[in-house]
């Protein structure tokens, strides 16, 4: 089963959020998901400490020397491996990309995110050349506005598409529920069904966004 790697040398772009949403939605679809937390901030470990959804197994503290054998051992029939990486340009990132079936590069619709995120895209292409195999990769825009598509976002989407870069639709909207997942653990479905969880946002809209995003990722894994 496939290995999905979240990569961007920039921090705070939404790598961990993407990883949590994909892990919980694929698990809900019946997959056995292994999540590798390679980020020193341990966002996913914190999320799982509050209770990971059924079907999700977390492995923490995976470093540069362990990443390749850990992915290899986690990969297997009926399993999806999701790798959440640190937001720096490191060998850990380049090694993880080499083991990916799909590299997702999250980007906020800002010029800075686009510029730094493009380093990850360039690295994927160079690794494809060095390894002699194609590594599917796509950009997902994150923390976008639910109300309107900004001019910067439109321009960025045009530039990415013009450069032949696959852009995942839908983007991930800035939703309070996505942030709250790290405080409550579990998944959005559990959050929606638990009246004691206070998110200050529309969980149903967040869930619909996460499901549509997961569906778009699934289409790229086929």
């Amino acid at each position, binding site marked *: 089963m496939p290995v999905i790697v979240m990569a961007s040398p920039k921090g705070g772009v939404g790598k961990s959020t993407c990883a949590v949403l994909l892990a919980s939605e694929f698990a809900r679809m019946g997959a056995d998901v292994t999540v590798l937390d390679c980020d020193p901030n341990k966002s996913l470990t914190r999320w799982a400490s509050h209770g990971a959804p059924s079907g999700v197994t977390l492995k923490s503290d995976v470093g540069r020397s362990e990443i390749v054998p850990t992915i290899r051992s986690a990969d297997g029939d009926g399993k999806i491996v999701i790798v959440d990486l640190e937001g720096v340009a490191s060998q*850990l990132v380049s090694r993880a990309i080499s083991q990916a079936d799909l590299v997702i590069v999250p980007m906020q619709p800002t010029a800075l995110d686009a510029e730094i995120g493009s380093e990850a895209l360039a690295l994927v292409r*160079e690794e494809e050349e060095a390894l002699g195999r194609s590594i599917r990769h796509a950009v997902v825009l994150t923390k976008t506005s639910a109300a309107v598509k900004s001019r910067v976002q439109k321009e960025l989407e045009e530039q990415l598409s013009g450069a032949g870069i696959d852009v995942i639709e839908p983007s991930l909207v800035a939703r309070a529920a996505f942030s709250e997942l790290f405080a409550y653990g579990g998944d959005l479905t559990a959050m929606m069904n638990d009246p004691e969880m206070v998110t200050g946002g529309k969980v149903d809209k967040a869930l619909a966004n996460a499901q549509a995003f997961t569906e778009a990722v699934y289409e790229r894994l086929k």
Partner: protein
Amino acid sequence: MSGSNRLAGLTARPKGTTVEDVRRVDEVGEARGFLDRTPRKKPGRKPSPRTWQLHPKVFPEVGEAIAVEAERLGITQGQLVEQMWESYLKAR
């Protein structure tokens, strides 16, 4: 169609995991600034464990008493020995 049936169709492509593959990936990454950023261990010799032994020839109870007194005064055993040496010289 249930979710698990849909997922059954997903497959992983074979990937290179040999030492040579990893070396090639590291080279490509390093050329683009993706370097080994594993935190380095603190350089230098690690401090020896404290044995509270002042000298092999000092009786253990004397050594321990000196260690306790030095700790009470908030100084090292060496500093306490220096003070004792000054007292000795004055008394002589």
